[in-house]
């Protein structure tokens, strides 16, 4: 492994890390602005022009706040909880292909941190780990509301990982690979997986709402019932870390959905545009397209949050186990039959 390779990856990791943090930070502003728009009000507009510096002000405020650690809590786990939540939220973006390869001076630069051949499984592993932060944080607080929030978070994310995984199996029948890069390359141009897996996409979308704890699945924090859910006892930046992790998760979930079902950085006419603008600008345009898709998904997350009420705990479980899992299994069976028949006769 030569130095240039390490350097290249290091720069890429840094850039992606910073971009994810930036997107997450500005998602908080976007959320408040969109909520304001939906609710006939303005939203934050004091810090900077149009509230542009609001995320910075929020972050600063979080750092300046007094850190309160409850006396009876387990201090190590109390700090470990939000750290773990933030960590798992940050590493999810490692396998996402952000754009086609850039050819710079005869050297190919991949816009992906790690093109591992089990990319889909990696994402799954990371997402499953995410709930540990919430559980540990909620348990360590030694507060009944936090504990209830943590229990809800655990059971919710375990229940919804199953239909999510099953919907992905159907997708893998179509793609025949676990590598995200290859999945994206297969969807070249407008040949997106959503065409082959519409039901799978809907199941995946619902499950990603549940996995990111967004309304209508925000039971773990559920202000009106559990005060703050798992983060009731948190203050200062530890609380900020939980919130930040939620927005990062949303960003990663949007990126994964765009990659798996909406062609990643592909768009109809990508070849024509690439030939027109050259090997450096072309990939950058493709990357911008990916980000446009991601932002559309993030907007969708917010739009839903400020429109619908949340489920009750048992209704959430019913939806997961009695509706989504059978649907996902049916989707696998149908996809399998269709693919077999197609391969045999055409």
């Amino acid at each position: 492994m030569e130095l240039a390779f390490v350097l290249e990856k290091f720069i890429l990791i840094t850039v992606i890390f910073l971009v994810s943090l930036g997107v997450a930070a500005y998602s908080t502003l976007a959320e408040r602005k969109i909520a304001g728009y939906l609710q006939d009000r303005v939203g934050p507009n004091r810090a900077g022009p149009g509230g542009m510096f609001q995320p910075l002000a929020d972050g600063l405020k979080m750092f300046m706040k007094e850190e309160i650690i409850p006396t009876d809590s387990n201090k190590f786990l109390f700090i470990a909880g939000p750290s773990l939540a933030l960590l798992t939220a940050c590493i999810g973006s490692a396998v996402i292909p952000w754009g086609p390869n850039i050819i710079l001076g005869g050297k190919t630069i991949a816009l992906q941190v790690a093109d591992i051949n089990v990319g889909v499984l990696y994402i799954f592993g990371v997402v499953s780990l995410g709930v540990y932060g919430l559980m540990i944080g909620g348990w360590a607080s030694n507060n009944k509301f936090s504990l209830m929030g943590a229990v809800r978070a655990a059971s919710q994310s375990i229940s919804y990982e199953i239909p999510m995984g099953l919907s992905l199996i159907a997708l893998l029948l179509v793609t025949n690979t676990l590598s995200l890069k290859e999945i994206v390359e297969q969807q070249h141009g407008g040949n997106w997986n959503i065409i082959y897996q519409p039901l799978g996409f809907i199941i995946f979308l619902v499950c990603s709402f549940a996995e990111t704890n967004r309304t209508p699945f925000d039971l773990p924090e559920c202000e009106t019932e559990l005060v703050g859910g798992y983060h009731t006892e948190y203050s200062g930046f530890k609380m900020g870390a939980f919130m930040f992790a939620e927005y990062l998760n949303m960003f990663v979930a949007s990126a994964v959905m765009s990659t798996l079902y909406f062609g990643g950085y592909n768009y109809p006419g990508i070849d024509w545009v690439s030939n027109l603008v050259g090997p450096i600008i072309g990939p950058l345009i493709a990357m911008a397209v990916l980000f446009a898709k991601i932002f559309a998904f993030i907007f969708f997350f917010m739009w839903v949050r400020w429109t619908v009420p949340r489920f009750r705990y048992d209704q959430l479980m019913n939806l997961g186990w009695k509706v989504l899992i059978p649907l996902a299994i049916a989707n696998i069976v149908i996809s399998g039959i269709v693919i077999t028949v197609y391969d045999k006769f055409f």
Partner: protein
Amino acid sequence: MNNYPVYTDNDPQKETITLNLGPTHPATHGVFQNVLEMDGERIISGVSTIGYIHRAFEKIAEHRPFYQITPLTDRMNYCSSPINNMGWHMTVEKLLNIETPKRVDYLRVIIMELARISDHLICNGILGVDTGAFTGFLWLMEEREHIYEIYEEVCGARLTTNIGRIGGFERDFNEIAFAKIKKFLIKFPPILKEFEKLFNRNRIFIERTSGVGAVDPETALNYSWSGPILRATGVDYDVRANEPYSSYEDFDFDIPVGNSGDVYDRYIIRNEEMWQSLRIIEQALQKIEKEPQGVFHADVPEFYLPPKEEVYNNMEALIYHFKIVMGEIDTPKTEVYHAVEGGNGELGFYLVNDGGRSPYRLHFRRPSFINYQMYAPMSAGMLLSDAILNMSSLNVIAGELDA
């Protein structure tokens, strides 16, 4: 379980947990406590503790002249204080046998129905917030603001209105007030419709609310429920229709009745009542046109404070002013009960008078207090989420609960 706050579980072997819901919990919308015995998410039993903001209004009222009790009533159900004010004024008028002109009655009806709308707006908006949908609440808050602007135009205050006087109003409605009422009648219906679109047929909302806290009419009557939550169980009892006051008999309006008494029915009933209130206000505006203009109080100089210019320039007015302020006027030695249909139900005033300037004993029949008695028994067996929706649809206002 004891009826005092329990803060910790002392028995490590216990299978259940004790959860203190309140006194400061985001869902209680006020200061009151429920100590719940929980098995996971399910409530096994609950004990309500009230009285955190008890201000002894009934005792204070015994030392105040009648006209100074109005501000106390403001602070009971502060979501619809004009109804409390008017109810109190009408009680005193009943005691003193004062006949109010029709125009005063209609003006009172307008204000009371606006107050009912603002009360129901808050309740249904908050119900939305408690289910997790925040947006509808803010749409409605904007309209409540317009109602408050009308109050402001009529009496100068917004929340604790102290609106009107014994015998009528302290001043006539001005042109701007009427213009604002008319504007409200035009602007409010589309927004209420939009709000209903957001919730009425929302699948998640229906699943969350229907069947939750269902009460049969018999139980509801045994607990002496009244108001929208009683009507949701199917009992068509509305003080405005059964015991008309303030010329409600002149108006044509429907009383919506539900059938299951659950949270969804209560929500629908409240929404429908807002539509009916709008109808009443429209009729009242038309009726006022036909009444003699400029009449805004009954002609009772012994009890209605004269304007200050007259007090300084007119002997009669000065005498009456002195007598009212010093409490020199005899009142009948009797007891009266008068009830109005408040935002939450029958708001009654039981006044025992010994002939002086202040009541011998005054009791407020606060609907929130009476409706809330069933909350803890109802909660047993519910999920925590349901119990919270049930609480917000009972519309327990802490000020009215504790008086």
